[in-house]
């Protein structure tokens, strides 16, 4: 057992209101430089929809992620040690700017400087790359925001492949459309394809907390990570000639603060906590069948209160405060204890460590009637008839395993009914008990779920241990050595010149 710690995030899709505050917080801090304008380390997509970059989930187009070979080994779809010498001059799987969008701003100064004229002055859009006027903007960030039902966007969502034509028609019927928001950041995977693909070895996973980082000094712009990441969460900075990615705001994490996207989240949908996992089993789990992957990933995460796990973690150099944070981790509850959260596209086999609680909304509105049904006679029948079909969610969040989606939705519905019984009182106690039982939960657990979902405070949502930089330094060198040697802003000691 090789126990390591991993910062694990849970996004509660039932709570996301699609306000994009997270995206803006991230952009303002990290990606408002030249070359990064088009990057959204955090973006929010409308589902069903084609996303950003367009159709990123379609690996027949992008060849991202891992695949199993016939002899039971994993290999990257986009690159290999054998093919890299042939693909280094031209990467056949590289998405180009057109797959994202050409970033632009407006010629605001025209609004002030234009001479008097008979027509209204406009601020024309101009490219942030070339500076040229863009006559016709073809795409942009969140281009298909809220555009469910659109034949250009929503209907091309790759996750719809498992949904039958009948249901699909109903999903997209006018005035009965349904959609939900899908916020995405780097998943800081346990089996990251970007790291494995980097010819320069610039990408690495931090041992202490599992954050996947890209060493800008070592990146040589071979662009392999961009095609290898199936989530398209590494980006190419066209200006500096280096790739960049979400760093999970590690300077904030190291000082015990939540990443900017999570801190600013208006819907409070984001939870972050440490989890302990068994690194020895990564290969075994990444090799499971598609619909077994989500469960397999759950089994990788270990019980942080199990004395054996604690002992193994300590032996492996996991700090006590990290173990403590893992014990208080909200992520652990959502993923392991309650089994509500699921990994996005586990079939890409990178073992993403950003999990999603599937959306229950639109509330009880079923396919048949289009009306909001309050009836609980049918108990969980409504789960089957959700406007967001289970087969669709299964394609997105469980590698096609519908059972896991059903389990999660039922439990959330039971929690909702229990609260309705308590606050509105129009549901019989007996019905609630029956539902709780059928959803494999208890009143106590359901109340806990309700609390962490709806009432959780800042500290309950974010369980982040300090980074122990001081000990990191002490364990590899003598601290006194650096005392009185370097001033502010110096990488090397400010020595007197010759």
């Amino acid at each position, binding site marked *: 057992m090789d126990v390591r710690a991993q910062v694990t995030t849970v996004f509660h899709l039932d709570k996301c209101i699609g306000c994009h505050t997270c995206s803006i917080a991230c952009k303002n801090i990290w990606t408002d430089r030249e070359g990064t304008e088009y990057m959204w380390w955090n973006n929010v997509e409308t589902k069903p929809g084609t996303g950003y970059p367009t159709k990123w989930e379609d690996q027949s187009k992008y060849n991202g992620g891992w695949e199993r070979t016939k002899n039971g080994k994993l290999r990257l779809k986009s690159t290999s040690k054998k093919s890299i010498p042939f693909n280094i001059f031209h990467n056949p799987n590289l998405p180009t700017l057109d797959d994202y969008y050409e970033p632009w701003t407006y010629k605001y100064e025209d609004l002030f400087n234009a001479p008097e004229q008979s027509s209204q002055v406009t601020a024309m859009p101009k490219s942030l790359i070339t500076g040229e006027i863009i006559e016709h903007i073809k795409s942009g960030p969140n281009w298909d925001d809220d555009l469910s039902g659109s034949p250009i966007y929503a209907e091309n969502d790759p996750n719809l492949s498992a949904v039958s034509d009948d249901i699909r028609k109903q999903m997209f019927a006018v005035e009965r459309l349904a959609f939900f928001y899908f916020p995405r950041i780097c998943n800081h995977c346990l089996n990251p394809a970007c790291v494995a693909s980097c010819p320069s070895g610039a990408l690495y996973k931090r041992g202490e907390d599992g954050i996947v980082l890209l060493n800008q000094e070592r990146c040589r712009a071979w662009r392999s990570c961009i095609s290898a990441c199936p989530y398209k969460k590494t980006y190419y900075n066209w200006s500096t000639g280096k790739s960049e990615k979400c760093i999970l705001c590690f300077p904030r994490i190291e000082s015990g603060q939540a990443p900017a996207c999570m801190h600013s989240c208006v819907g409070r949908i984001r939870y972050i906590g440490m989890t302990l996992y068994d690194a020895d089993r990564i290969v075994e789990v990444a090799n499971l069948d598609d619909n077994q992957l989500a469960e397999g990933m759950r089994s990788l995460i270990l019980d942080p209160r199990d004395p054996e796990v604690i002992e193994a973690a300590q032996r492996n150099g996991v700090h006590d405060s990290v173990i403590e944070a893992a014990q208080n981790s909200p992520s652990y509850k959502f993923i392991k204890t309650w089994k509500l959260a699921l990994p996005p596209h586990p079939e890409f086999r990178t073992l993403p460590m950003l999990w999603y609680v599937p959306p229950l909304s639109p509330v009880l509105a079923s396919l048949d009637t289009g009306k909001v049904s309050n009836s609980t006679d049918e108990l969980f029948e409504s789960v089957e008839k959700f406007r967001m079909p289970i087969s669709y969610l299964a394609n997105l969040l469980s590698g096609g395993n519908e059972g896991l989606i059903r389990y999660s939705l039922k439990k959330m519905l039971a929690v909702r009914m229990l609260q309705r019984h308590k606050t509105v009182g129009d549901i019989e106690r007996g019905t609630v008990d029956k539902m709780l039982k059928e959803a494999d939960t208890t009143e106590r657990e359901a109340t806990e779920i309700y609390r962490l979902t709806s009432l959780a405070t800042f500290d309950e949502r974010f369980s982040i241990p300090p980074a122990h930089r001081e*000990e990191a330094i*002490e364990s590899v060198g003598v601290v006194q050595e650096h005392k009185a040697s370097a001033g502010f802003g110096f990488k090397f000691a400010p020595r007197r010149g010759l």
Partner: protein
Amino acid sequence: MLDTMMKLFFAVLPYVALMTFFLGTIYRYRARTFSYSSLSSQFLENRQQFWGSVPFHYGILFVLAGHIVGFLVPRSILWWNSVPLRLYILETSAFIGGLCALTGIIILMYRRLTNSKVAKVTSPMDWIVLAMLAAQIGTGLYTAIFHNWGSSWYSASLVPYLWSIATFSPDTAAVMVMPWAVKFHIWGAFALIALFPFTRLVHILVIPNPYLWRKPQVVIWNWDRHTIRQRDY
């Protein structure tokens, strides 16, 4: 006068070039590691990049490898060329390599001229490099056409000159009688070597060889995880 100048060029310029090359690349790698990048612009333009970059790189690498092999084992080249058919094969393939490089660099130059996005990431130094490379390929192809069987006479008379440079006893007799195209080719080569550390050409030095033998996943620990707990604070 001209002779003395030329002699100086062939005997001194190489050392200036090599000196700048070594000092420049090492200093740049140490002080400005960040600037070591292939600076790919494929992200901005994909199609012409394929038709330009691929033939150019394969062509130039093949021809360059030929020059280096000739430099290292000139006798083997001469032995190989002792049978006419083998000589033709070598010369033809080298010529095709040169043509590939020429086609590629013309497409790449056209691309940098016409695509406004790519033009945005093109520096004046990029143009100098492109022009010099094009000139090198041009004089090389010219030599191949008008001064036949270069692989043989290169191995026989130019390689000794190069070795004389490498062993710090420059002997310029052989190059002095070379045709002008060849002279320019040699100067161009040393000029490229001299300019090397100031251009994007440094990406040649950071080709990803460690990838071929490293493990797929890379994990870096900030703290020494095995001693951190044993320390007595």
